[in-house]
């Protein structure tokens, strides 16, 4: 079973639309895209990362994961600690920086304090950098991550501050639980909603893909 749980997978899948072209990393990101394609988003295309320079230009949304994420949605898949003397080494950039630079991106990541930090040790892939104007200043389009979907809920960037705020809670999860696993003073959206449980069609697709 996915590290995100069924609530996380369906919350991510529901952000996708029929006919969209997605770049999806292996694991939960691709699983969420397949779930969308099997339910409400027929004709959704998931690219496999070949011919990256050409295919990225034709993609509309990215689905990614990371080792670390910060309050501005910047992602780290490089190191913990200093680059030359790291305390942990991850798998490196791959396509990630290009995806978050160019596309609206959905990040899928289990919600744990070790991963949700105030500032990433290394910016492998740009989110909102350090504030709401930063991306435009360096010439990057959009906001980077449009949603961060975890096993506890969904965070989205506040347009005024570019900081990630809690917008959705999965069933049975409390705000306190999410705050306890978040390394910055997490704001809660005034429009906080609860994730609807999996529909029959979603449940069927989850069950058949797990089999």
């Amino acid at each position, binding site marked *: 079973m996915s590290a995100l749980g069924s609530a996380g997978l369906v919350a991510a899948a529901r952000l996708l639309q029929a006919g969209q072209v997605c770049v999806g990393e292996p694991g939960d990101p691709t699983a969420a895209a397949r779930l969308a394609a099997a339910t409400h988003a027929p004709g959704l295309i998931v690219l496999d990362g070949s011919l990256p320079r050409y295919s990225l230009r034709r993609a509309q949304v990215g689905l990614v994961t990371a080792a670390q994420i910060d309050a501005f949605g910047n992602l780290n898949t490089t190191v913990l600690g200093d680059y030359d003397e790291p305390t942990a080494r991850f798998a*490196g950039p791959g396509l990630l*920086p290009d995806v978050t*630079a160019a596309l609206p991106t959905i990040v899928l990541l289990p919600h744990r304090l070790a991963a949700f930090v105030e500032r990433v040790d290394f910016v*492998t892939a740009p989110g909102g950098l350090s504030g709401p104007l*930063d991306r435009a200043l360096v010439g990057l389009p959009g906001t980077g991550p449009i949603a961060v979907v975890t096993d506890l809920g969904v965070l989205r960037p506040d347009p005024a501050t570019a900081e990630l705020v809690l917008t959705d809670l999965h069933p049975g999860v409390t705000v306190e639980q999410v705050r306890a696993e978040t390394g910055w003073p997490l704001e809660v959206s005034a429009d906080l909603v609860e994730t609807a449980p999996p529909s029959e069609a979603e449940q069927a697709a989850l069950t058949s893909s797990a089999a």
Partner: protein
Amino acid sequence: MALAEVVDALVPDGSTVAWEGVPVAVARALLRRRGLTLVSTAPGVSGDLLVGAGCVDRLVTSAVAGPRIQAALRSGLALEEHTATGMAAAYDAGAAGLPCGLLRGYTGTDLAAVTRVATVRCPFTGEQLAAVPALTPDVAIVHAPRADRISPDRLPPLYAARRALVVVDEDGGEAPWFAEVVRAEPDEDGWAELLADRARFTAWLAQARA
């Protein structure tokens, strides 16, 4: 000629080798090599093995995956890290005989400060672009199901290198005229299984190197 002989003749000590999707049998034929520079978008199990066997001094890659690569980094393996599109642009430039490849990339990342990338201005539009140095390996080794079914991703490394080898699963079709083609051999002595068992493999490696 058999795969091991072809590979052995193609890759002398100290070579820079582009390595894309290569089966482990190729790594096996190179275990006695020293001082290689391995250039690989994703080194995979075979690249991890080559590094683990101590054949590689320097790694140019966009995927720092594999337990042996991670261990080697802790003991001094030199690393040049690029994004997947940076690798593609550098191979393209090498294939076209250009000194550098251009792309939109590295913007807003900490990678730019720790790898070989520069910023240039487009003379027509004024846009700031990233430039990466061309990759021109001594040898490129890539995998394809058949000589006429080479993935488009893997053509630039072949064209960029001085010598090119396509390792295929089945005979038939024609590769680019300058490339050698050799068929991957089936793993008759269960080598892949040996690889999975670290203790058994370490013992086997010591024997193979003796």
